């Protein structure tokens, strides 16, 4: 039976859907231009985060157990909306500059966010899969948004082909789990877990799930698409993909592995820990050799997937909280960094190489300072957001008897300092001989302001953030 509560709990999803329908309608009727779509999208996302904020203290299951709303899912909805708002703000200057500002960008963006919110509030493997596919299809198209550019076409096609492959594994895994439990409902699986956690069929299903979700979060060895796609896609899309996409996939992974499966201490946890260590080592070491900033951040995002996996592998409530806190820190920081890259990039896609940033501090001291802030945060230097995230995840790993993983994480973080700080060195310690780039336009400045402020706020007041999605902690 559907009740009023069902709709109340799913309010953010409805507000997103209504917004996207409105945009489609206005686009079809050509009431406004792309700018109007941007306005609608930002307004809709603001309303959505407001509604999700009202739901922060609610919790319950809606639509016959298909979705579950609680503090964590509402919080993630806010985070995803924020990522959407920042992306929408940055997108207009970016695409207008390239003569490619079209309304369907916002339609795809919002559909992707609907998929992501669905993933974060999934209470059934089917809902989860639906969310993943909705998100992925929009991202495939977004990766090749400027359809006349070969590089973007290549990026989109690669992402699509490999992504479809991973989705197939995911679906197969779901089928196997259904075969051993008799239900795809997460509550039902959680109840049955103790009895079936050692059944071969269930474990095979879990392994397939890990393959599928491992691809979506770009963990080693399923990370190969990330550098090519991140580099090829339009920078605003890359920023969105790397943050919101990863957040939603990790939320799904945490919900399945920690809340539903309770993997703490099991073989599954060990497998995840291995993937985590491999991602940390490979992502960080290879990032050093990169000369293109987009590609460097792609590898660094592989490394961050490793840190996040450490939280998932811990399998505890602390690990869960750590993942969400880390996602917050990572999302606000990386969004900001990509906003800077998008601003700095020239229309012919040049200007993303590390050498192009030489002496930036002399021409644009404010932007250079903000970028330095992001780099510090990504390295995990206190008191910025990145540190708190890393600290929390590693602590969870240690308490779950994965001390070795925490030590690998700490050591690879040391390696990462090398390439993040190199960006700062380029900006500050060299003389500028390149061209002068004018200050970003107002929307980009707003986006940078929001993310930079959050990098500091999350770093200084992590407890307040933690209270939002973990009222009990």
């Amino acid at each position, binding site marked *: 039976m*559907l009740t009023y509560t069902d709709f109340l709990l799913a309010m953010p999803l409805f507000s997103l859907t209504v917004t996207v*329908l409105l945009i*489609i*309608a206005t686009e*079809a009727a*050509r009431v406004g231009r792309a700018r109007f779509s941007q306005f609608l999208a930002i307004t809709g996302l603001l309303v959505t985060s407001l509604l999700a904020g009202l739901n922060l203290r609610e919790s319950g299951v809606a*639509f016959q157990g298909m979705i579950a709303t609680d503090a964590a899912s509402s919080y993630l909805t806010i985070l995803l909306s924020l990522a959407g708002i920042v992306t929408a703000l940055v997108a207009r200057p970016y695409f207008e500059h390239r003569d490619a500002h079209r309304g369907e960008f916002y339609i795809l963006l919002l559909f992707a966010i609907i998929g992501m919110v669905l993933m974060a509030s999934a209470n059934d493997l089917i809902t989860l899969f639906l969310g993943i596919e909705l998100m992925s299809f929009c991202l495939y198209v977004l990766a090749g948004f400027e359809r006349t550019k070969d590089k973007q076409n290549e990026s989109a096609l*690669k992402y699509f*082909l*490999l992504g479809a*492959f*991973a989705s197939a594994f995911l679906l197969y895994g779901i089928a196997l789990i259904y*075969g051993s439990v*008799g239900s795809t409902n997460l509550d039902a699986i959680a109840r049955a877990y103790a009895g079936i956690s050692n059944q*071969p*069929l269930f*474990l*095979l299903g879990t*392994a*397939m799930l*890990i*393959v599928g979700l491992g*691809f979506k979060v770009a963990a080693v*060895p*399923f990370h*190969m698409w990330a*550098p*090519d796609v991140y580099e090829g896609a339009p920078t605003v899309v890359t920023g969105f993909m790397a943050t919101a996409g990863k957040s939603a996939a990790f939320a799904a992974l945490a919900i399945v592995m920690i809340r539903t499966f309770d993997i703490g201490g099991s073989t599954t946890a060990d*497998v995840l820990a291995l993937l985590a260590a491999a991602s940390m080592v490979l992502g960080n*070491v*290879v*990032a*050093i*050799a*990169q000369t293109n900033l987009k590609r460097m951040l792609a590898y660094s995002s592989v490394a961050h997937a490793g840190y996040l996996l450490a939280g998932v592998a811990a399998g505890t409530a602390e690990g869960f909280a750590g993942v969400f806190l880390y996602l917050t820190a990572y999302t606000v920081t990386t969004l900001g960094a990509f906003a800077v890259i998008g601003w700095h990039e020239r229309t012919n896609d040049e200007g993303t190489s590390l050498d192009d940033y030489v002496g930036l501090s002399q021409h644009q001291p404010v932007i250079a300072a903000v970028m330095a802030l992001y780099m510090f945060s990504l390295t995990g*230097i*206190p*008191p910025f957001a990145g540190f*708190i995230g890393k*600290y*929390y995840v*590693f*602590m969870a790993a*240690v308490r779950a008897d994965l*001390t070795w993983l*925490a*030590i690998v994480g*700490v*050591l690879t973080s*040391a*390696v990462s*300092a*090398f390439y993040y700080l190199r960006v700062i*060195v380029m900006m500050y*310690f*060299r003389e500028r001989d390149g061209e002068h780039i004018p200050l970003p336009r107002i929307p980009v400045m707003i986006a940078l302001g929001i993310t930079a402020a959050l990098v500091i706020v999350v770093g200084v007041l*992590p*407890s307040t953030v*933690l209270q939002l999605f*973990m009222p009990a902690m």
Partner: protein
Amino acid sequence: MTPLLLYIVFGAFAAAVIAPLLVRWFGDRASAVLAIVPASVVGIVFFMLGPPPDGLLQATIPWIPSLGIDLSFWVDGLSIIFVLLIAGIGTVVLVYAGAYLHDHRDLGRFLTWIMVFMGAMLGLVTSGNLLTLFLFWELTSISSYFLIGFLHDDAASRKSALQALLITGAGGLSLLAGFILLGSAVGSYELSAILTSGDAFRSSEWYLPGLLLILIGAFTKSAQVPFHFWLPNAMAAPTPVSAYLHSATMVKAGVFMLARLHPVLNGTSEFHVLVGTAGAATMILGAVSAFGQRDLKRLLAYTTVSALGTLVLLLGIGTETAVQAAMVFLLAHALYKGALFLTVGIVDHETGTRDVESLGGLWRMMPMTALAATLAALSMAGLPPMLGFIGKELLYEAKLAAPWAPWTITALGVTANILTVAVAALMTLRTFGGASSSVRTAHDPSWQMWGGVALLASLGFAAGMAADLVATHIVGPATTAIRGERVETSLGLWHGVNPVLLLSLATLASGAALYALHRPIRRMTAGWRPWKAERAYDAALAGMLASARKQTLWLQSGQISTYLALTLLATLLLVGLPILAFWPQLSMVVAMDLALLPTVIAGMMAIAAFLAVRAKTSLGSIIALGVVGYGIAVLFLLYSAPDLAMTQFAVETLSVVLLMLVVAKLPEFRQMGSRSTRLWQAGLAGAGGALMTLLVLFVTAEPARMTLATFYGEASYALANGRNIVNVILVDFRGLDTLGEITVLGIAALGAVALLRLVVDKEDGR
């Protein structure tokens, strides 16, 4: 008390923020204005905090309660001695830097970073929680990175800044790992809990790994062998930075850490052996290397390495006398070495060179500087009545009474000290005394510069004269804090004729003799560096870069077939290994009584799949794949799933048509890959197929679940009053799905409208 403590730590950070503004308002004098901050800290410690009665002040401000991280302060005698050094020498250095970096365009940035560094150091030594302590520790590494690389036009300067950051930064992370082990073993990160749990930690299994990790952190920071090489290289920094970071404060942070955790770590043979050996090796190596240097700054840097080794050695010995000696020596060394570094800065500033060989006779041109520097050098050589003398006496006393290998340690100590005496003589006599050199135009700099040298040198003298005051108010509380028990200290210049005094005299005489012979000996040992640990660092860095590049070539080829193959391989491992592990438990049904039609269709599909792979054109592949797809549809039909079959037919037709449309525009296959590539791909594909087949066999062995069908069968009339199950499902049970589908169709229609209008626009030429 709390506001005062907060001011001690955060005053400097606040000042850092406004430093660029101050430079805009006051110009060079901004540094003197900023010096008010550390000067007031010294004042607070002297007059307001006083020597704490039980040697302890505590305050806690909650930060992340859920993690148990609080901003807690722990100020005891050990903290006080360090706060005095950091703030006191900081004041002198700030005043000095204003004149030294006169009119430098980046003065604002310099002052910001040096204030950040000062705040981090003050936070480090007053912190009451291991984790906040670690934060401040890393912050000192980072701010020192910017200070060493301050003269960033110089490539060597950038390289050594990075080297220092990587070594101390990596050491810091090792320290964090050690802290985590320590904290987990004790169950708290608060110093109050940790310092009283020494026995618990020493007997836990985490002791040895924890100790090693913490020691690596401390040794990298305090430039102990084999991590010492970054310190002489860091001399690329401006001299005020060298004086402040690389003699008085930052490099002492590792010593501070050993002292701070002394009650927890000390007392095992592992601790004595590891710390003692590293300290002794560093002490002797630094002294030997110092003697052969030509550059005054590097010369001082190596004596600093030696002094740090001495401090670590003393803490490794760990007896009451040794700890006391360490504290006196710490104080004496900071005062004279700070002064001498600043002197080198003056010499460099005035003459333009730091080469010992080309300097001489400067006392005539800069008498005030010469006088102050000589006073400092007397303390370094350990002559009475300087504090350096008392330090050396205590040092010998502690070494002679060491619980293990006292004679070896003493012999090494005497050797190092002889070299130090000779270097002190070299530093002053060669530079300021003797015949005049080629330099003619030098003169005393402004008082801001020589005044600092004079102040530090006289403090060394005053402390020697008033040794008892120093003992009761500074060294005593510090020793008490390190030992974890009340220690009464008294210091004096004269203890009668005893072995220690004789050793001192012998040291001085040998040192003087060595100086007399320094020209031939230095010529022999010039540039001699017995240890090449730096090569390991260079090799590691190069190796990391090379492996990163290699990986990119190997795995990140950009070829989608490689990516797909690797993904498949990983999946095979991840899913295949559990199958192998569970093989005995898995059951499968291999039915042999298959009907003819399905068998034929399956056979056709297999042949078609094989042909799809072998096809020479993409058209052939598509057709063959189409056969496979339609085969599946027929199988669905045969096993009574007509709805699935219909869907499959529709999807298959659509995809074949679409693929054909696309393929028509694609070129033929030109490259098929080498034979070995194809073989490995065939193997991988075969393995993937085998895995899928196995999975199907396992799944069919599970009992089928018919709950859904039964449910709809029973409930359709009872709940929804409908006899046509399909209708009931569509409009009742899954009504919402149907609504969703209608919405989807609506959205698709809207999209189609938008697209069509686009086409119409184009045709209209709009």
